[in-house]
């Protein structure tokens, strides 16, 4: 793999630069004390070697396939595309043959010259490639083989050019940094600045990814709304997708299920989590706390699919035995809003308690002292001083828990059933937006049909909802935050 070698070459150059910088500044020390410590001069060179070289390497690796693809497509021309096929299908054949040739060469079944001189007239390419473990769907046409050979040639040229460019850049960085290495040069400030830029780049990459996710959703959502009217999507109270066409895709039954399950989950999680947090931060002794807090947080580490199994195998049957046909007769099957809601509530307890605990601990001791000093009891102090002071943070924690509840999928899939319906009975099976996104995308549906694309519209709705909730949480926290010294 030339790319791996290239990375090692750049790293080696960086190391050499680091050592060279140190040595040079050490030997120049006679001219007076250098501005910075020797390591900074080393780092200055190493950064100048690595950063531009790796940036170019990454960009090149991203851009090259597009360029090669474009060039080969242009060379193929329209006459290479058989009737009933598309240029995309032909190009995927080309890529497959090219990869097959690569595999054959690397396994030693074919010489490199042989691979580029192959002719369909003389060789059965399909059989030769099958020997190398690459199965092709049909016989290879001369155009496809030719295109594949062009593809390989272009790629090889690109790789060679890239290696030269990256190595040259790394060397240039080395020389540049080495020339700079004089006692007057402010290496410490330069390294500091470079570090700042790298951290900034990391932060903006995360933000850009979020924006990218939104745009990928927007594109498909628009495509969905061009196939299915938005007024139906937001106005209909029926969800009955049928892949034969003529489906009704109203979001309300799903939104209702989402909200119902989330409300039940929060009704369970908020009081229990909050009381647990108050106990842990105000009443528990240090030994109890050291033991109980990690135990509670273990709950947060359990994968949600395991909670789903718990709902399916334990909570559902338990509820059914009480509320089912043998009991009160309200419940038809183990999968119900109540089952999923209860289990989701249990999942959210550590979320609420851990965040609230931190927030309650941040309330200054002076407020507690002030309240005790006035003759208040512990619970009076908590109720009237500590919780009001911690309220904005607690509200923020609850809203964060709510966005998790809205986005939860596995527990719903296993615990709440798959029936989209509008019902007030918490013992009915219902489903949520997230669970339906999964089921719409994991079928055999044509990806261009509204039944599959609706998943993106649902995802977008969910994104907007949770975003709104998070913004609201931030607003509450900012507005009511007490400024402590």
């Amino acid at each position: 793999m030339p790319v791996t070698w290239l990375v090692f070459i750049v790293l080696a150059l960086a190391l050499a630069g680091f050592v060279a910088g140190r040595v040079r500044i050490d030997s120049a020390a006679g001219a007076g004390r250098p501005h910075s410590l020797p390591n900074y001069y080393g780092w200055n060179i190493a950064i100048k070697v690595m950063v531009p070289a790796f940036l170019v390497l990454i960009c090149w690796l991203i851009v090259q396939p597009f360029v090669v693809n474009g060039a080969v497509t242009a060379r193929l021309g329209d006459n290479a595309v058989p009737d009933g096929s598309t240029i995309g299908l032909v190009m995927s054949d080309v890529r497959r043959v090219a990869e097959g040739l690569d595999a054959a060469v690397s396994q030693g079944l074919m010489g490199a010259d042989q691979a580029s001189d192959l002719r369909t007239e003389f060789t059965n390419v399909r059989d030769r490639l099958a020997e190398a473990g690459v199965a092709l769907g049909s016989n290879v046409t001369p155009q496809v083989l030719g295109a594949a050979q062009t593809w390989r040639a272009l790629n090889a040229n690109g790789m060679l050019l890239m290696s030269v460019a990256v190595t040259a850049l790394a060397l240039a960085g080395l020389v540049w940094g080495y020339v700079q290495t004089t006692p007057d040069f402010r290496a410490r400030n330069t390294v500091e600045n470079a570090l700042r830029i790298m951290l900034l780049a990391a932060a903006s990459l995360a933000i850009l990814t979020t924006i990218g996710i939104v745009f990928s959703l927007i594109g498909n959502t628009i495509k969905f709304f061009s196939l299915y009217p938005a007024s139906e999507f937001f106005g209909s109270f029926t969800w009955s997708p049928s892949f034969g066409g003529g489906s009704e895709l109203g979001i309300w039954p799903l939104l209702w299920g989402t909200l119902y399950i989330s409300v039940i989950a929060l009704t369970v999680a908020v009081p229990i989590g909050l009381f647990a947090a108050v106990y842990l931060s105000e009443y528990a002794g240090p030994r109890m706390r050291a033991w109980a807090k990690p135990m509670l947080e273990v709950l947060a580490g359990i994968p949600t699919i395991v909670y789903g199994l718990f709902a399916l195998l334990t909570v559902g049957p338990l509820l059914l035995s009480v509320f089912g046909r043998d009991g009160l007769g309200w419940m038809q099957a183990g999968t119900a809003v109540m089952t999923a809601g209860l289990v989701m509530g249990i999942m959210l307890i550590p979320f609420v308690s851990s965040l609230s605990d931190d927030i309650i601990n941040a309330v200054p001791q002076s407020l507690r002292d002030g309240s005790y000093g006035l003759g208040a009891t512990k619970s009076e102090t908590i109720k009237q001083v500590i919780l009001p002071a911690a309220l904005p943070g607690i509200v923020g924690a609850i809203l964060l828990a709510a966005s998790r509840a809205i986005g939860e999928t596995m527990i719903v899939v296993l615990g709440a059933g798959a029936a989209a319906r509008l019902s007030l009975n918490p013992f009915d099976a219902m489903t949520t937006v997230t669970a339906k996104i999964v089921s719409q995308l994991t079928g055999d549906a044509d990806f261009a049909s509204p039944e599959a694309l609706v998943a993106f519209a649902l995802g977008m709705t969910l994104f907007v909802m949770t975003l709104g909730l998070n913004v609201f949480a931030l607003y509450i926290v900012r507005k009511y935050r007490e400024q402590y010294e």
Partner: protein
Amino acid sequence: MYDAPLRKTDVEAQTTKIAARDVQVYYGDTHAIKDVSVDLLDKTVTSFIGPSGCGKSTFLRCLNRMNDTIDICRVEGLISLDGQDIYEKRVDPVQLRAKVGMVFQKPNPFPKSIYDNVAYGPKIHGMARNKAELDEIVEKALRRGAIWDEVKDRLDAPGTGLSGGQQQRLCIARAVATEPEVLLMDEPCSALDPIATAQVEELIDELREQYSVVIVTHSMQQAARVSQKTAFFHLGNLVEYGETSQIFTNPTDPRTESYITGRIG
């Protein structure tokens, strides 16, 4: 700071409010207070002075059992309020703290309105039967805290929005509102500027008419200005206790003299 002339004190034969006998305080293995015995008088300002870490704040916090909230703290000996042992099992520390109020070093208003800050204690202790009575108690406390005129138009504003000096006077009003018999003040002016300090000191002098006030201070001028009795603590011992004028002009213990003349501390 200006040096006020020592006040002509008029300590008559007054009743003892708080009596401490052979009090020992331990923080874990540290012996923080050693054999302290002292009689604090009613309707008198008593100041505790001494270098940092000498135990004066610790001893102050024993007087209303605030040290109960610290796990590793252990108190031995006898402390009585009006002849009643406050560390006896039957005594409810919560009731005790209503009788022995406390003002802290840093102003610590609750994140509530000015009105609710003052009404907090009276509400907890059920001192008002209706809103009108509560209003009256709050106004009286704020007047006694010498802050009524500054806040009467904005009782609904948050207490945390006041200036440092106003916050401390609010905290004093809050403590006064529960009608305590003793008021403990732990360096109440250390976070305040000279003007706010002067206001609080004036207030302390007025409070003396009704309460027994105990004040911990690092400022010897302040002790001289506001108190009639002074106790000097050093390394956990009560070195000397007497009339403020006597302590500052004619101390009997060489350690006291060294401290007030600035040689130790």
